[in-house]
């Protein structure tokens, strides 16, 4: 039987197991939307902005490991997806965007709502397609899902001209063979064995675990490696949850706002094992001074990640989980060390660093400290909630004070640093996990970047909780201005204690709004919010002077850290760094 392109599109999505599409209608995709009207298999989640749709698909993908799908119209609908695509691209998230396009005969004619989205999205997608013939459609969709989810995952965009969705052809579900795309999954056995022997020789090793561990589902294998060889683990922002944050071998996050002991351990280590990481500048600080005494083993599925930023002694290209399985086997069967003897001195040293400078803040009875809010959220959820964040101070405080024990519970825009990501991502995660507690920890700046998605949450009855750490500033900008721009707060004040009234905004959309001004109000507000099965905004008026510490100034070595301390002392240190 012949089917239209629109029918083939939905049939193919069904074959790929898609249950939800996040989207927004418009002229050239009305044919597809018409079919969705009474489609029983696929539900469309109508967001209030196309950017929200892509972030929601991203949150769905991160929290499930399955691809997240978005559908938008041509022109502005398509260009509004660019930030979402770039966000997913930087963090290797399988997001698939289908964009409508003007009819093929009009492409290039500056038609109404025409944009060259394939050209625009080329540098921020893993791959993209313009479908020129309905006969190619099912094969392209199959390739799209395969490319997005295999190898190093990433976003793929498919541009669907209107005439392609209308014309008819026989539906077939073809076999796949992309001769030019063959990801490497198995690591080189000889290299892995070299790595095992190097691990046995090292006295002061550290594991740096990143988002690749989460993507590859290798948490169990990582834990086995760390526990067996007694190597401490530090997790990058993207790697939080890949190894239990409450584990005695956990060092927390390294880098710019990392822990003192993680950065110290890296700098003093004689071996660094990077697993599913790409050595981002926020992790390494000054690259020439990064891990100066360490031999570096780097395991990653993407060969371009290796030796891009740091020198590597043993490169292993492959799927993290499969490589770790082999590595653990070799360590147990061939190397066999008395690990606890070997590690004694190193772990003692790390304990000393942990005691010397723990992650801390100064509690106050008068004014709410943001870290206190995050700690309370952790305490009340017992770590069993999906946590999204926006970008800036809210993100760093959450990364520092919420201990993630399990993967896929943490949604944050790590690479691109997209403000406005968290709330729609939380919505996407809530769609996938209707019975889980999903919380977006936001700032008053970021939440205003996609605040319209309140309507999406309300209409779909999603009990997403948003904890706004309201300091009426773009806090991280203000922090940099205070430290590096002589306290000249140029355009970073938002006056959000005056406008908008977040409680009233929430109520206007039909959500519940709470406000906490005193520290004593934090716990009751959180408890109440978590009890209600509705969308809740919590406006925590926090100490606007609070900064994220420790902090490594941009471009400094990661052991040159600033801490919360008297001003004169901090200034002296800053001068030395500058």
């Amino acid at each position, binding site marked *: 039987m012949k089917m239209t392109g629109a029918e083939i599109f939905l049939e193919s999505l069904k074959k790929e197991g898609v249950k939800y599409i996040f989207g927004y209608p418009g002229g050239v995709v009305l044919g597809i939307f018409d079919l969705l009207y009474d489609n029983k298999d696929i539900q469309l989640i109508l967001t209030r902005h196309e950017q929200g749709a892509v972030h929601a698909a991203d949150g769905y993908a991160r929290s499930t490991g399955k691809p997240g799908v978005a559908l938008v119209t041509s022109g502005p609908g398509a260009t509004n997806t660019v930030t979402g695509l770039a966000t997913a691209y930087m963090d290797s998230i399988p997001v698939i965007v289908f964009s409508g396009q003007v009819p093929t005969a009009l492409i290039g004619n500056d038609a109404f709502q025409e944009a060259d989205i394939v050209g625009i999205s*080329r540098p921020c997608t893993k791959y993209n397609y313009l479908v020129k013939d309905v006969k190619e459609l099912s094969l392209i969709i199959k390739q799209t899902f395969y*490319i997005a989810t295999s190898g190093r995952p990433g976003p793929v965009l498919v541009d669907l001209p209107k005439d392609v969705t209308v014309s008819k052809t026989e539906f077939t579900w073809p076999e796949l063979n992309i001769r*030019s795309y063959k990801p490497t999954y198995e690591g080189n056995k000889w290299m892995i064995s070299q790595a095992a022997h190097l691990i046995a020789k090292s006295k002061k090793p550290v594991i740096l675990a990143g988002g690749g561990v989460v993507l590859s589902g290798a948490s169990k294998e990582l834990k086995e490696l760390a526990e067996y060889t007694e190597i401490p683990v530090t997790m990058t922002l993207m790697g939080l949850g890949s190894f239990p944050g409450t584990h005695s071998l956990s060092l927390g996050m390294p880098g710019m706002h990392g822990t003192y002991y993680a950065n110290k351990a890296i700098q003093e280590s004689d071996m660094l094992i990077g697993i599913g990481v790409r050595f981002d500048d926020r992790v390494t600080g000054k690259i020439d001074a990064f891990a100066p005494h360490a031999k570096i083993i780097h395991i990653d599925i993407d*060969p371009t990640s290796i030796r891009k930023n740091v020198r590597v002694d043993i490169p292993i290209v492959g799927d993290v989980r499969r490589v770790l399985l082999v590595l653990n086997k070799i360590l147990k069967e061939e190397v066999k060390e008395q690990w606890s003897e070997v590690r004694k001195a190193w772990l003692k040293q790390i304990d000393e660093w942990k005691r010397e400078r723990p992650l801390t803040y100064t509690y106050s009875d008068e004014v709410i400290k943001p870290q206190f809010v995050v700690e309370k959220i952790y305490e009340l959820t017992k770590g069993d909630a999906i946590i999204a964040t926006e970008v800036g101070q809210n993100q760093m405080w959450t990364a520092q004070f919420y201990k993630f024990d399990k993967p896929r519970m943490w949604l944050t825009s790590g690479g691109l640093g997209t403000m406005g990501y968290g709330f729609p991502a939380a919505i996407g995660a809530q769609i996938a996990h209707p019975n889980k507690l999903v919380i977006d920890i936001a700032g008053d700046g970021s939440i205003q970047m996609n605040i319209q998605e309140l309507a999406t949450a309300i209409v779909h009855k999603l009990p997403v909780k948003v904890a706004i750490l309201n300091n009426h500033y773009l806090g991280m900008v203000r922090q940099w201005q205070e430290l590096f721009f002589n306290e000249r707060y140029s355009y970073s004040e938002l006056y959000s204690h005056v406008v908008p009234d977040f409680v009233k905004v929430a109520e206007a959309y039909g959500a519940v709004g709470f406000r906490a001004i005193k520290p004593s109000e934090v716990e009751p507000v959180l408890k109440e919010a978590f009890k209600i099965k509705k969308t809740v905004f919590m406006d925590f008026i926090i100490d606007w002077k609070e900064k994220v510490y420790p902090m490594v100034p941009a471009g400094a070595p990661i052991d040159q850290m600033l801490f919360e301390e008297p001003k004169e002392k901090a200034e002296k240190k800053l001068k030395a760094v500058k």
Partner: protein
Amino acid sequence: MRHTISLLVENKFGVLSRISGLFSGRGYNIESLSVGETIDPQISIMTIVTSGDDQIIEQITKQLNKLIDVIKVIDMTELDHVEREMVLIKVAPRHEDKAEVLRLAEIFRGRIVDSSQKTYTIEITGDEKKIEAIVELLKPMGIKEFVRTGKIAIAREGVKK
């Protein structure tokens, strides 16, 4: 150091922009680029001349390999290979230089592919040094136009450095 990289790619629209976009997006340099179909019309071959230190060249070849439409990447510089480029040079010599222009064309095994009352157009094929040499010699005679194809390269059979 300068490297000549050969790429086998899918012969589809948009592939050239993926490759040039990769170079511009990551701040790599393209000195020359030539593209053409292979015997298999579904596959094109590109020859790119680029430069950079070892780390940059390693990144370039890895990044090219990572592109979905790239089938194979060969860094010719690591192999024994033959490089050729063709140029068309339109010269407008003074009357007294005309004989010299013809003589130079002959010495460099060039061919006169067009002539007019005032100009000769010479076709020259060769490696970079040969082309540079004839350009230097023809310059004083008055080069009016100059077009080059960009380099193409092929590995010598069976010989690896």
